[in-house]
């Protein structure tokens, strides 16, 4: 069976078990497709913050800053891939980083679709019809979780229990990474303020 690389994500969506297997053996995973998916993931996050119907939107919309959204979508995905790669390397996983990245990104598709659907429908729905939106959210999330499990399982050729264990370890590794990044950021900021205050001190003393 030959498919264009753009059809793979939808094929995988409806064939969560053999889909990733096919992808692995036929080496049909495409970085370009995965980047488009991540971009869509980011766009859907922005859209759900800014374009959700007024009655449903509880966000603080007075200010808009795209950087935190970028970090919490694409950034978080990157952290997930790195953490999973690090953990699976120690746990005899067979997957390469590229495979982890591609398979994980394909697994996000249902979540992105549900999130976009939520954003669109919230503009035509009333608050007491909101239950449908939460059903959509739940389905999208569960679907993506199942796909993600299957993706990790196939990429590393794990058993189910090992997959679950690896994912738990991955989440722990993600927490540690985020903590370290925050720590480094804070330290870097301290250094920058230290150097800049030193600079100004010297300037005021000797130059001005």
């Amino acid at each position, binding site marked *: 069976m030959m498919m264009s690389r753009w059809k793979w994500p939808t094929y995988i969506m409806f064939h969560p078990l053999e889909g990733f297997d096919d992808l692995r053996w036929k080496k049909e995973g495409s970085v370009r497709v995965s980047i488009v998916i991540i971009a869509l993931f980011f766009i859907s996050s922005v859209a759900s913050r800014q374009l959700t119907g*007024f*009655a*449903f939107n509880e966000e*603080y919309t*007075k200010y808009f800053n795209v950087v935190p959204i970028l970090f919490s979508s694409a950034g978080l995905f990157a952290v997930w891939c790195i953490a999973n790669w690090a953990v699976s390397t120690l746990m005899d996983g067979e997957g390469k980083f590229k495979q982890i990245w591609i398979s994980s990104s394909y697994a996000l598709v249902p979540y992105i679709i549900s999130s976009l659907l939520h954003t669109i429908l919230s503009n035509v729905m*009333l*608050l007491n019809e909101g239950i449908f939106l939460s059903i959509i959210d739940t389905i999208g999330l569960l679907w993506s979780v199942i796909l993600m499990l299957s993706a990790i399982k196939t990429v590393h050729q794990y058993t189910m229990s090992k997959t679950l264990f690896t994912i738990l370890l991955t989440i722990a590794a993600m927490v540690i990474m985020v903590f370290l990044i925050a720590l480094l950021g804070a330290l870097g900021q301290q250094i920058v303020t230290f150097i800049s205050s030193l600079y100004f001190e010297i300037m005021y003393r000797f130059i001005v």
Partner: protein
Amino acid sequence: MVLRNRLSKRLSKLISFTLLLCMMVATLSMGASADEPYQGYTYDEWADPVPSQNGYIVSQVISGKDLGIGSFNEPVDIFYTPQKEFYIVDRKNNRIVILNQNFELVRVMDKFYKDGQETTLVEPNGVFVDENGMIYIADSGNSRAFRCDQDGNIQVEFLKPDTEGISEDGLFLPQKLVVDKAGNVYISITGGLRGALMYDKEGNFVSFYGANRVAQTAEVLMDQIWKLILTREQRMAMRRNVSIEIDNLDIDEDGFIFTVTRTTTQVLDRVKKLNPSGINIFDNAQGNEYMFGDYATTARTGDESTLVDIDIGENGIINVLDQNRQRVFQYDRNANLLFTFGGQSNQKGMFTLVSAIESTEDEVIVLDSMKQSITVFKKTLFGSLVHEATELYNRGYYDEAFEPWTEVIKRDGNYVLAYKGLGNAYLGNGDFENAMEMFELAIDRDAYDRAFEGYRTEFLRANFTYIVLGLVLLIVLVKLVPWLIRKYKKSKGKGEGAA
């Protein structure tokens, strides 16, 4: 080159001129609001303060010397009587000062007669006057409260009741009091953990009234768990979690009693509206969101408002006094914040230690027990517009309130309540689109949803045929176009094969 230079010179001139103009306009508009030492504000949906026009401005500041009776010494309570007089408790001078409507001295009461014998006040704390001109005074230093006539003849004394819930050896210090239409007297006392004391008009103790609840904090829960384990002796030695005493009371026209509690440790029960059976109507546990005083801006404790007095004015307007930032918060009868004014400083209209608040038809009077003065605030035009509009609005006359709300918006485009009012007026008239816009400005999601429901129904009804047509067309296109493409490809393939 020359041309370009000239051009850029012109441009820079133009820019500098525009900038200058902007600055002038800015200073001018600043000057318009800078005549009061405080800047009023309200809170929006996200608990951000939004600057607003002042509803009240200072009209006069009165000291004891102005009245010719010597300086006040800790004025702690003021009451505006049905006879349109002001009764002021001058605590450390042990006297009651009576002023008329125009803040001129009527008389000073410092001598009272009990069974013909003269008696004086010792550090009184509260005063109340009923419709018949009977005066009720909380005479704390003498551990009593009493009712007397206009000449100071004491008729009934309200003494420490012999009941459980009041420690026998502790001091009995009545603080503030209110009297309902039936003549029942409600007295808040120091250490009144079970609420205010309620007496009948003969001076007999009836019951406790309106006790505060104990907030369920993690600490309290821990203590309760410990109590399950510990022995009786250990339990007795434990710190007890008791409710906080009521600090001040007021009663409105309908007989509801309002209480405030000077607590910074819990939000629970800070301001209560009690019905005759002592049930709190301003209860957030019922799914409402009544907020009084400043919203805590940070998690820092000690930053919250310390509410010390409450006053119910005309049309159920609620005035609350905050001793932390020395501010007055004014709410409508449904506890929507209307105005804030006052603040901490030595300027006129600002305070160092506020102690009591009272209001008349168009004035708010605040006592300062450190400055020893009476400050009178007068309602502005903006204030009266807002009051007129809220009163109509709260009675459900949305249409009639439209006009005053528009006037309010003209003067203050940030006034959130006005947009709610306008939105409801539009909604009542079936103008859903405008209603939606107004509710969006007011950030009122539920009201917006109601307007949107109407809008959607109307839209669907008007465009039903087009929508159905559009859907059919869409399906046809989705099904038809790929089929056409396939056919085209096939025929092309055939053509190639033939060639």
